[in-house]
């Protein structure tokens, strides 16, 4: 597993002159390493001897549990200890060429690299590589033999689809980049790697397609990533918070995904993807509001149902945002806008409820959010219990006790279901919070307060930019061709251009409709000709 580029970056970080050079003496080297890794009891020092006379002292150092033991036994220990004896080397030559022999001739591993300082060696040990120390030789060999326990590629649980690929990212960085590379076999697909985190040294990869993504965007992403100075990156959320444009906004300004097909699609739209080790969530930048309403499946099913489903999602977004607030504004301020019969039945339902509509809505919404939060953290079995308790509390008991009106229960239920139909979790979180703001403003100034709050939210969204792209585009900075993949999802052959405004190579596909029709016409013509000749 290739880690050499990564090491290069690490080397750049530390000043070359400050590094401790390895010496010729094995015991001295090992002593230094041991001192360095004092009290790290998971480091294994495997000493062994090689050669007919067993005179050459070698030591393997690695972190237990992070390497592939079988590989070490077969390809390193086996080769050096057993096979090396079968071909007796010429003693006088050996001294000079021992290193070359081992480096190029003895270890059948795909990843071997030589280094000459102990700092890198320690880093490599902690990354999961094996270091081969050889007595009398200054240079050290790094053998890539990573093999820690990993989760296999499985279906992403947060973004499942009915139709479409089922593979998802895992916690292993390298698997993830491979999954993307498998989808785009283009030399222009670039992967720039770096390590971030003083202590964690987490692998970060920036992926982009060179001739689609704007240079300035890639540079900006790199620049922002390089400014990060933190002890550890444990999840891509850390990266998000450290590079986003506006940290105080409720709206997510990057998009997370654990679907490689989504990443590939984003890359092809000229976006930049940041892969982070130890998490299945990749970061896509820049994003706009529309991308949070898009699901991967939209592009795998036919365009008409996809458009309708997407429209449904937008409606769901609006409903989850304004439904409880509208209820308050209408019942407490402007009952005139509803049909008389409906108003009477709402009034009848609310009769006896002791709280004003705002408090009623808050009680129900907070109860619902509590249930949701409790359900997320609990194991599946107990989660069901929460559902039952919640269903009883929200659905029946509260109404029968006269604390809330049944209409409010309907509103909360509709809101909840609508909030689940927004595909993006982070984005629906933002909507959850804005929902409460709207409830307050509707309780304060009715419909007028609600509209002002919506205008504030819109104003905030208009101010936001994600890596230089207006958050609301393409609704703002209007480009009509970009509208084809927003609320509607038009047929592919109509989406000739890439949707993002900031792509370099704009043409995405060439319409083949007329060619298909041409073929049919040709076939018909030839059929006719054949018929004619048959007649003759």
């Amino acid at each position, binding site marked *: 597993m290739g880690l050499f580029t990564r090491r290069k970056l690490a080397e750049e970080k530390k000043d070359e002159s400050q590094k401790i050079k390895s010496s010729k003496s094995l015991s001295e080297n090992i002593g230094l390493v041991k001192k360095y890794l004092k009290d790290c009891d998971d480091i294994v020092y495997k000493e062994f001897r090689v050669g007919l006379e067993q005179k050459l002292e070698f030591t393997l150092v690695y972190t237990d549990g992070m390497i592939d033991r079988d590989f070490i036994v077969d390809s390193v220990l086996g080769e050096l200890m057993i096979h090396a004896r079968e071909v007796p080397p010429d003693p006088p030559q050996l001294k000079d060429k021992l290193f070359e022999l081992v480096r190029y001739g003895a270890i059948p591993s795909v990843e071997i690299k030589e280094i000459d300082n102990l700092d890198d060696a320690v880093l490599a040990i902690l990354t999961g590589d094996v270091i081969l120390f050889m007595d009398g030789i200054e240079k050290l060999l790094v053998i890539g033999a990573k093999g820690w326990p990993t989760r296999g590629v499985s279906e992403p649980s947060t973004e499942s689809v009915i139709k479409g690929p089922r593979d998802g990212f895992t916690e292993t960085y390298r698997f993830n980049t491979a999954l993307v590379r498998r989808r785009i076999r283009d030399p222009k697909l670039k992967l720039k790697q770096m390590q971030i985190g003083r202590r964690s040294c987490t692998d970060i990869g920036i992926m982009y397609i060179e001739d689609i993504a704007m240079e*300035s965007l890639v540079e900006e992403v790199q620049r922002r990533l390089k400014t990060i100075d933190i002890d550890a990156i444990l999840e891509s959320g850390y990266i998000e918070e450290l590079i986003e444009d506006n940290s105080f906004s409720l709206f997510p300004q990057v998009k997370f995904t654990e679907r490689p097909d989504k990443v590939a699609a984003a890359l092809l739209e000229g976006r930049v993807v940041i892969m982070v080790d130890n998490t299945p969530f990749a970061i896509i930048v820049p994003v706009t509001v529309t991308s949070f309403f898009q699901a991967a499946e939209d592009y795998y099913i036919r365009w008409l149902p996809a458009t309708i489903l997407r429209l449904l999602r937008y409606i769901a977004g609006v409903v989850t945002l304004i439904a409880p607030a509208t209820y308050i504004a209408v019942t407490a301020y402007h009952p005139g806008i*509803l049909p*008389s019969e409906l108003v009477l039945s709402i009034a009848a339902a609310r009769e006896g409820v002791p709280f004003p509509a705002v408090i009623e809505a808050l009680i129900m919404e907070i109860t619902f959010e509590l249930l949701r939060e409790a359900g997320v953290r609990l194991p599946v079995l107990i989660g069901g219990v929460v559902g039952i308790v919640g269903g009883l509390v929200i659905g029946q008991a509260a109404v029968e006790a006269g604390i809330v009106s049944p209409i409010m229960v309907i509103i909360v239920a509709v809101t909840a279901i609508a909030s689940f139909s927004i595909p993006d979790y982070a984005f629906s979180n933002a909507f959850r919070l804005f929902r409460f703001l709207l409830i307050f403003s509707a309780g304060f*100034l009715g419909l007028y307060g609600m509209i002002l709050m919506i*205008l504030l939210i819109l*104003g905030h969204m208009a101010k936001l930019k994600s890596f230089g792209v207006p958050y609301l585009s393409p609704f*703002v900075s209007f480009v009509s061709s970009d509208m084809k993949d927003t609320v509607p999802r038009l047929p592919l052959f109509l989406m000739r251009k890439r949707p993002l405004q900031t792509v370099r190579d704009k043409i995405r596909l060439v319409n083949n409709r007329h060619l298909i029709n041409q073929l049919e016409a040709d076939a018909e013509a030839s059929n006719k000709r054949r018929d004619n000749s048959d007649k003759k």
Partner: protein
Amino acid sequence: MIKNNDIISPYQISMIVIMTMIGASAFHFVHDAVARSGNDGWIVVGIYGLLNIVAAWLLISLNVRFPGKTFPEYIQEIIGVIPGKIVTIIFIAYIAIITAYEVREFTEVAKMFLLPRTPTEIIMLTLILTCVYVVRGGVECVGRIVEITFPLVFIPFFLILLAGITNLELTNIFPLFRDMPNKFINMAPDIPHAFFGIEYLLFYIGFMGKPQKAYKPVTLGLLFVTGFYVLITFIGITAFGADAVPKYIWPLLSYIRDINIPGLFLERLDGVALAIWVITVFTTIITGYFIISYSFSKVIGTKEHKQYVLPMVTVIFYLALQPDGLAQLYDWGNIMFKYVSGVFMYLLPILLLIITVIGKRGGSRNEKA
């Protein structure tokens, strides 16, 4: 690319034109138009609207001579620094008064229909402070918010107008073309009121990369506004009859209130219409508000305009509180729009254009070469 580049697109310019001009007065406008021009009001409005396009072209041709510069910047080139600053300050005062007028007119209607007991000050302050938030985002933010609210306003608005189509009596527009000259003359003083907002272009076109590109979007925007006014005047006349319209202060609102759609989730549409109308007022205010704070920063000579946005609240708030009531507000509005608006909309730009052409100022020749 991460910094704001303070550039607005041609599309945004036409949105600014539309959303500025259609503001608080839209409901009242029908009253004026029919009171002055009777059942031919819609034709008269349409023709005046077309004439305003010509006026807007003059404004643009002035701007084209100073690419990349806004009014407070180039006026100093045309008539000198100190006079330029004085004119700019007068201009700011004028726009501040207009903005305050909008705020007050809105508040009066909102108090009438939405929040009768809420204090006027609260309604005003919440509105102005919401605007402050957007204006602080700079011209780009103004451009974007105007762009995004356009469909939010007009799609539902046209649907609402459509819902009342059964209440229309089309024969009310007859007899056509009687006594046209008088109707045109009667209407003329009210035209600046309806089409105020083209003078805002003096500021906004400066933010376009290429001011030459402004002709088309501004024309389209004005055509839209004219079409809108023609439509609502037409609806007012056909819904009530030319004699009845002037009896209503807000004929359009009355028309929307009369609509009754049984079976729909929303039975009465006036609540929705008012909610939409809040947005049009909001956009009218922010476009004016931005000009005020921006020009003020140019007069003072600072780079940023942000720090002036919040203090300006007091000015607009104070001005908006001045009229005693709706009657005085409309009286003052009549004076303001009849006599003052015309100066800033037509006279001043033409004067400046003449000075520029005679004095051969501006960089238009360089631009051509």
